[in-house]
């Protein structure tokens, strides 16, 4: 599959001391929604700015839509919505969208037509001819989304697109991302909202202190955490000990002050078919099975695991690395 974004060994140092990116490599396939995750100050926005020629890398090799990063004509096929964007307050929403269409080199008639369509899509048609200065944060975000799509881009780079948007708006934006993917566009999504990323992204990368610590599909990244869990009433059987882990817990409906009366039996790296023999044996012993399911790590669990020190379990401090190599 062709790569929409192919970046290798990207480094960025600010003022000779602050190492925002330390050899980042990211590959995004064409037609997928790619989630770019990381704690505050990890360098996510810096990488996006480098891709969009807003900032210059200290070291870089790579391509965007097959052209070297920084190739201006290629940007006509890229849409970008930065974090904390500010549009001129004296322009209307429609004028903002048309303005960015013109900057992308679109003809007047085409950008007018496209602006109307997009403002309708982001449900801003009633406010399209009012000044941006009168908009709420969520409305500005919707107009920003329309402005980033005005040039009918093949690659859309969105930096926190749901920032300041209410839950209904978030759901609409999520649906739009899925629609973009269905249309064959590539979406590079920079977001803190892990549940949204989990729902729409084909693949993700996690950036911590300027380094990519995990990259792949969510299934690939959470494969190691896949397990089969069986909850039973009472004590765990003695024969379980060599098979897997066990935890004692309260049965459903028990109060917080009650003693645990149930057991959770966990078979690590096991799918449902691997747990059937255990279920048969438990049933044969007449035990009551409360619950049985294949479980895997959530994206949030994966994220927390990725940003934590593997030995100490302490989550990395926010911000880039200052000074020497760490």
């Amino acid at each position, binding site marked *: 599959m062709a790569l929409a974004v192919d970046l290798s060994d990207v480094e960025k140092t*600010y003022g000779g001391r602050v190492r925002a990116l330390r050899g980042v490599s990211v590959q995004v396939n064409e037609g997928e929604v790619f989630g770019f995750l990381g704690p505050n100050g990890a360098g996510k926005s810096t990488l996006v*700015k480098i891709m*969009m*020629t*807003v*900032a*210059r890398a200290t070291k870089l090799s790579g391509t965007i839509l097959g052209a070297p990063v920084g190739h*201006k*004509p*290629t*940007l*006509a096929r*890229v849409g*970008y*919505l*930065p974090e*904390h*964007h*500010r*549009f*001129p*307050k*004296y*322009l209307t929403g429609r*004028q903002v969208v048309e*303005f*960015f269409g*013109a*900057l*992308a*080199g*679109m*003809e*007047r008639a085409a950008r007018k037509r496209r602006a109307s369509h997009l403002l309708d899509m982001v449900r801003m048609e009633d406010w399209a001819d009012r000044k941006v200065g009168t908009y709420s944060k969520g409305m500005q975000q919707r107009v920003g989304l329309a*402005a*980033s799509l005005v040039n009918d881009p093949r690659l859309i780079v969105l930096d926190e697109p749901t920032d300041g948007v209410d839950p209904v708006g978030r759901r609409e934006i999520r649906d739009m991302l899925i629609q973009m993917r269905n249309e064959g566009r590539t979406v590079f999504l920079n977001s803190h909202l892990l549940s949204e990323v989990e729902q729409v992204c084909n693949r993700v990368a996690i950036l911590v202190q300027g380094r990519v610590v995990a990259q792949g599909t969510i299934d690939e990244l959470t494969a190691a955490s896949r397990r089969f869990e069986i909850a039973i009433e009472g004590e765990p059987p003695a024969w379980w000990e060599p098979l897997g882990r066990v935890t004692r817990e309260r049965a459903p409906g028990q109060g917080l002050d009650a003693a645990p009366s149930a057991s959770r039996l966990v078979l690590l790296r096991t799918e449902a078919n691997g747990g059937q023999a255990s279920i048969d044996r438990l049933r044969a012993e007449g035990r009551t099975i409360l619950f049985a399911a294949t479980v895997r790590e959530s994206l949030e669990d994966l994220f927390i695991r990725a940003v934590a020190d593997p030995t100490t379990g302490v989550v990395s401090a926010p911000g880039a690395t200052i000074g020497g190599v760490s």
Partner: protein
Amino acid sequence: MIQTMALFVAAYRELNARKLFWLSLGLSVVVVGIFGMFGIDQTGISVWPFGWSFDSPFFNSNVISPESFYKLMFMNLGVKAWLGLFATALALISTAGIIPDLVSAGSIDMMLAKPLSRARLFLTKYLTGLLFTALQVTVFALASFLVIGLRGRVWEPSLFLAVPYVVVIYSYLYCVCALVGLLTRSTIAALIVTAIFWLLLLGVHSGESLINYGTIASSLEVSAIEAELAKAQADADEDPETVAELTEELASQRSSDATWHSVHWWVFAAKTVLPKAIESLNMLERQLVVDARLRGGLGADAEARDETGGEIFGHGRVERAKFIEALRADENSRGVWWVLVTSLVFEGVVLSIATVLFCRRDF
């Protein structure tokens, strides 16, 4: 072209949204209206619509034609006082924020991510800053054209020369404003530094003019002493002591003259590398007011006629008429190259620095 037009249209909308833009345009029309109220006839000045008239031996249509009268008013009151000072200050206040707004966090990112070179983006934004002044002066020149046409019965298209001249003069200041705005991202800092730079230009101009007057007067004094000495030496009856005194005075004056020239050289060199706003306005005046006697303001005639008087820079032998003639010759010797080209070179250097900084900066 689509991108450049979009930036200009956005700039117009920005200006349109600024109250100061409309206030400034309104004041321009008022200024033209005020000088349209004044008329000139065979006896003196009249003020419409009040019917007031003031008899004057110097300001009547026998001395100055209505055409020259209005041109002088346009040049001295309209261009030099209004456009050159007050409207320029208003324009600076209105446009000083254009570059800081452009480079402020959140507004530049989406523009830089478009297929448009940074240099083109910056220079186009810079030109949109000049658009303010261009619109101002165009409205002013058009209103003046109509007033002079209707009141003076002369339709003078050369008044529109004020548009490029004033815009170029404004650009000398605006390039500094843009550079400081880019470096500091602060409108206030850009305004303050530009105001200081403007004062510096006025200071250098005044200083150089003063030193130039002194230098010219000193040179004329040397010539006068030389002539007097030659005459004394030729006259057999002349007292040898007088000749000796003149010789000594000549040596002293030559030494003083050398000092004047040396100081003037340095000040002139400093002025050469800086933009020359006032000289540029004077060039416009020369083009608009063909009659040399009328140049330099409404008092120029009186000055030219006054051939008597006291010492000039302490030099009793210098004739005022010769001094003014020498000044005029010096002024005319400072041609387009020295005035406009060196000023534009300064602007080009400042703009180049700003453009390179803009192109290399991370946002």
